[in-house]
């Protein structure tokens, strides 16, 4: 409950912050509009009591007073209408602004989150923050909040009017309202429980559909359609049951409230009538008539609030999930060593703004001096330990040296820790113990963005973005010229097939490049890394989805790409790692063998067994 209040307060901060004045105007407009509405419901009685009844007694009725009253009422109404228009339109701006702020903040914050967040949350869940959760918020901010204010103000105004008119009758109305509220709580509670169950059933169904449709081709090949249908029917039935119950209780709320209102009306009429006849509490007949009108205006907003309850609860739950995402700890970065362009003059490195092709680490020291170290790609691990979850150490005592221009390969079974090592170099994860030095600098001192800019990476899962081929390659270097892009594509041996595409480099890719083959997508990813031109490259199973013949073609391009760079290669195809300067064989997070291909073959250890095909890698 406390958490809910916190969420609401935080949400209201979004609503008020930045548009304080607008929000104030909205409140004032709602107030005016509500008062006009209440005045309207009292007007009829005033009309009857103060104008029509006296006129009835007047033998020669003069209507000017009445006309004046109607005109005044007209003015009040008009103010009400204008206020309604104002707050409705202002509220649109506010709510859309809030939604945009929340969306943008959420995405901006998400970009700052460490890889760990993405590794531990399902994409579907994260996506639903942007769709379902924001949607429920939209409803709440643009509809529920103004309505809530409106209802509260109306209730307050009517309550005042009722108290002024007759205290005993007011107490009677309040008693009726109390009964209504108890009923609302009961019904809303039931409907809420079933809504939760409905969401659970929907979730189960969602999982099943996702699995079946994802494997639809397998289903077809095994003629498994009938069984899938049968299983689906079971889940569908239970979803139906829960949806039916949840909606049933939500549906009957309206009629129940409405008719309780009607019963209240009768009760007041009867009791009030009786009281006035026995002369209790100074109640006149005219008073009862107007009181009846007021009691209607009183129960209506309460009815409206109760109808909004479901959507408010759902929106708050959505807001909670959104705020949870926003509260995730962003990636920490205490690095202060930055990557700069440099010129080499007389053996001395100096910083420059021009693109020279020479990069240097700019290292400011405590005493105010700055030293420049040329970026060469020298990476060293000293006794590195690492665990994704505290206590479950994945890497033990890993020590390795990669000298500039060397090709270092990691070989080992799935789960041996190959990818983990590369995750540490670019600081997707931070080490637990030990030290990693890059060109002699502790990588913790290097600014993360600069560290990553100096590393190129090609992964097994190729991720391309919606856009043209050219835009996808340019992702590696946003200011790359067309010539640079084509050069990079040629280097990766991608130029040839790209030219064969319907629009060449301007071919539109969609759905992660679904219109390309796996190999072609990988070639574009390699070109993307090539255009970035980093001193260190990480190839994580980069060529495993390319056939060996194409791979040998790509390999030529890759050789060009790797020339003069430090390269870390992870591959399960040993042909890819064979010509590495050093091969590390990993097992259960330890380096068990290291050496060149020839040395390892001579050792007749694990590598030899792998190579001769006695063990499988994955």
């Amino acid at each position, binding site marked *: 409950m406390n958490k809910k209040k916190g969420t609401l307060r935080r949400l209201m901060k979004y609503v008020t912050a930045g548009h304080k004045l607008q929000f104030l105007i909205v409140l004032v407009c709602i107030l005016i509009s509500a008062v006009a509405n209440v005045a309207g419901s009292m007007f009829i009685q005033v009309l009857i009591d103060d104008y029509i009844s006296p006129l*009835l007694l007047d033998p020669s009725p003069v209507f000017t007073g009445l006309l004046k009253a109607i005109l005044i009422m*007209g003015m009040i109404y008009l103010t009400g209408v204008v206020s309604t228009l104002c707050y409705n339109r202002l509220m649109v701006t506010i709510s859309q602004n809030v939604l945009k702020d929340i969306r*943008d903040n959420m995405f901006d914050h998400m970009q700052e989150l460490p890889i760990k967040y993405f590794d531990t949350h399902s994409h579907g869940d994260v996506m639903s923050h942007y769709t379902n959760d924001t949607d429920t918020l939209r409803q709440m901010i643009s509809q529920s909040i103004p309505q809530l204010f409106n209802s509260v103000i109306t209730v307050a105004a009517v309550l005042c009017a009722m108290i002024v008119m007759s205290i005993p009758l007011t107490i009677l109305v309040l008693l009726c309202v109390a009964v209504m509220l108890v009923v609302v709580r009961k019904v809303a509670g039931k409907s809420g429980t079933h809504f939760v169950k409905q969401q659970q059933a929907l979730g189960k169904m969602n999982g099943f*559909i996702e699995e079946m449709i994802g494997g639809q081709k397998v289903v077809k090949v095994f003629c498994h359609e009938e069984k899938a*249908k049968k299983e689906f029917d079971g889940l*569908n039935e239970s979803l139906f049951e829960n949806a039916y119950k949840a909606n049933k209780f939500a549906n009957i709320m309206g009629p129940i409230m409405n008719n309780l209102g009607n019963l209240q009306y009768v009760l007041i009429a009867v009791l009030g009538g009786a009281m006035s006849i026995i002369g209790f509490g100074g109640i006149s007949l005219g008073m009862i*008539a107007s009181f009846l009108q007021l009691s209607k205006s009183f129960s209506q907003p309460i009815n409206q609030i109760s109808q909004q309850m479901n959507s408010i609860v759902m929106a708050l739950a959505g807001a909670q999930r959104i705020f949870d995402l926003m509260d995730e700890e962003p990636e920490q970065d205490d690095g202060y060593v930055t990557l700069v362009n440099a010129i080499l003059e007389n053996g001395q490195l100096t910083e420059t703004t021009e693109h020279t092709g020479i990069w240097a680490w700019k290292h400011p020291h405590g005493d105010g001096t700055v030293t420049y170290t040329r970026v060469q790609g020298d990476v060293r691990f000293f006794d590195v330990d690492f665990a994704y979850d505290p206590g479950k150490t994945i890497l033990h005592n890993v020590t390795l040296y990669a000298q500039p221009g060397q090709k270092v390969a990691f070989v080992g079974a799935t789960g041996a820790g190959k990818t983990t090592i590369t995750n540490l170099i670019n600081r997707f994860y931070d080490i637990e113990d030990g030290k990693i030095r890059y060109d002699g600098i502790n990588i913790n001192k290097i600014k993360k963005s600069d560290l990553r800019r100096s590393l190129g990476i090609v992964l097994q899962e190729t991720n391309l973005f919606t856009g043209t081929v050219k835009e996808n390659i340019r992702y590696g270097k946003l200011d790359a010229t067309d010539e640079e892009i084509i050069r990079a594509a040629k280097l990766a041996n991608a130029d040839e097939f790209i030219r064969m595409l319907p629009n060449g480099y301007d071919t539109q890719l969609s759905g992660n490049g679904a219109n390309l083959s796996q190999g072609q997508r990988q070639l574009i990813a390699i070109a993307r890394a090539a255009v970035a031109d980093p001193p260190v490259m990480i190839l994580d199973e980069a060529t495993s989805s390319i056939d060996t013949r194409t791979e040998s073609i790509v390999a030529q391009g890759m050789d060009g790409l790797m020339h003069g760079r430090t390269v870390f290669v992870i591959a399960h195809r040993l042909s890819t790692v064979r010509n590495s300067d050093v091969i590390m064989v990993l097992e259960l997070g330890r380096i068990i063998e290291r050496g060149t291909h020839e040395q390892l073959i001579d050792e007749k250890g694990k590598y030899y067994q792998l190579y001769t095909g006695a063990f499988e890698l994955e």
Partner: protein
Amino acid sequence: MWSESETYFRKFETEKDWSVVMIKRLAACVREYKKDSILTSVTVTFEVLMEVIIPFFMAFLIDEGINVGNISNIYKYGAMLVVFALLALLCGVLAGKYAARASAGFAKNLRRDVFYRVQNFSFSNIDKYSTAGIVTRLTTDITNIQNAYQMIIRIAVRAPLMLIFSLIMTFTINSRLAVIFLGVVPVLALGLYLIIRYAHPIFKRVFKTYDRLNNVVQENLLGIRVVKSYVREEHEKKKFNEVSDSIYRDFTKAEKTIAYNMPLMQLCVYSTILLISWLSAKMIVASTMTTGQLTSLISYTLQILMSLMMVSMILVMITIARTSAERIDEILQEQSDLHNGPNPVRKVPNGAVQFENVSFSYAKSKEKLCLHQVNLDIKSGQTIGIIGGTGSAKTTLVQLIPRLYDVTEGTVKVGGIDVRQYDVETLRNEVAMVLQKNTLFSGTIKENLRWGNESATDEEMIHACKLAQADEFIRSFPDSYDTYIEQGGANVSGGQKQRLCIARALLKKPKILILDDSTSAVDMKTDALIRRAFQEQIPNTTKFIIAQRISSVEDADRIIVMDNGGINGFGTHEELMRDNAIYQEVYTSQVKGGIIHE
């Protein structure tokens, strides 16, 4: 994803009555819930009737009871009102219940029909839709329709009835004053119409932009490692902000238009009240009307205009649901392009395969052929290796054998009979294919294996697993054959997954077995053991083996070398080594890479 939808819309733009056709098709899914739907309307009708009568008697209560101080009349009308209110309550509760059942049931049937339809899709149908697209249709879209349907059967009945009854009542009370409505109602209706007409296209645009937003987020999530490695967070933020901004602009525009709804409605209500007040005051003074009638008239005024408001709300709701309905209908009207012919053959005589002048195009167009003029003659029981570069149409070639796709030109024959003459299920049970992108499903290993043969005995399963070299590692699991496989086979290694998939296919005891690069993650020794087991244990099964490694195919009876959608060479290892350039090249690249050992 919505490029598919676009073609769908374009297709229908020419047909004017498409929405009628669509609604008919969707409405057909109501089926057994028709009764509930009708009962909803009936009970809603009674509820409305009560609600209309209630203010009428409230007028009596005031005029003949309170205003004249007649307590027995107060009791009389009070009692009647209580009865009416209870009746209204009963009808309302029943209507709510029926409506919930009808709409939830309609949604259930829709979901079922869509899912069943997808189950009947052919591969080329499946290729058109993304998994996410189908999942959204089965969940969000159907929920939208469910809500709209509930709204329609409750409120679409309620609002017009309320309008008509209330109008009748006003005319009964005072026909001269009721004429006011004839002036106000069209003005309000016109206003609402204009608002919706202006806002609808903007809303439509907003939904498309929403798709774009989702796409940006999804790609960002999938490629987060790329984003972070290239330090492109700012670039991504900019991309997102642009889409977010355009949603903001369009949404604001559309909702600002919708924001006229409420004031317009108030304007009409208030002017009506004032007009009625002025005119009725005169009438009351002239004694042609009572004050009680005035209060009832005001009540009816509210009801009449409220029901118009409801109509406009329904229209907005339908606008939103329409997009969903279109997406659902797209699937419901998608016809599977693979059908059993008349008198389908239900027995496959043997495992011989012939390709006669076969050409194939995924786009079904003769300009974009992926496979040109393929001719092959393979005898039953042969082992055929297939090798070729990425995109050389290896997979395309073998997919035609179990008729996963239909040829564009030519004929594929299995056992000497055109595959199109077989009953599809018969054919696929005899032609087992292990797909390249294969899936295991959540469930135990046994349950997964039973996909191949539902009534397989434990012995049969173990035998199949032994052939696929899977038995050993399965037994090493604590739960052995009852080990639970996570979704997508996440808890077994790639090589183990592939072997389980092979075992699953073997359980079909097929006449033809196709392995589409199915041992790529299996080590060479095991790979060789699998092939040897095939040779010894299922010699009469025709085997197609697509592979990257020469070692996987070199001992096949014959090897097909695919290049660029055609057959470049077809012969034994020795023959190909002698005179096929591509084969030699692949061989050399692998020997040099250390994959092949002499």
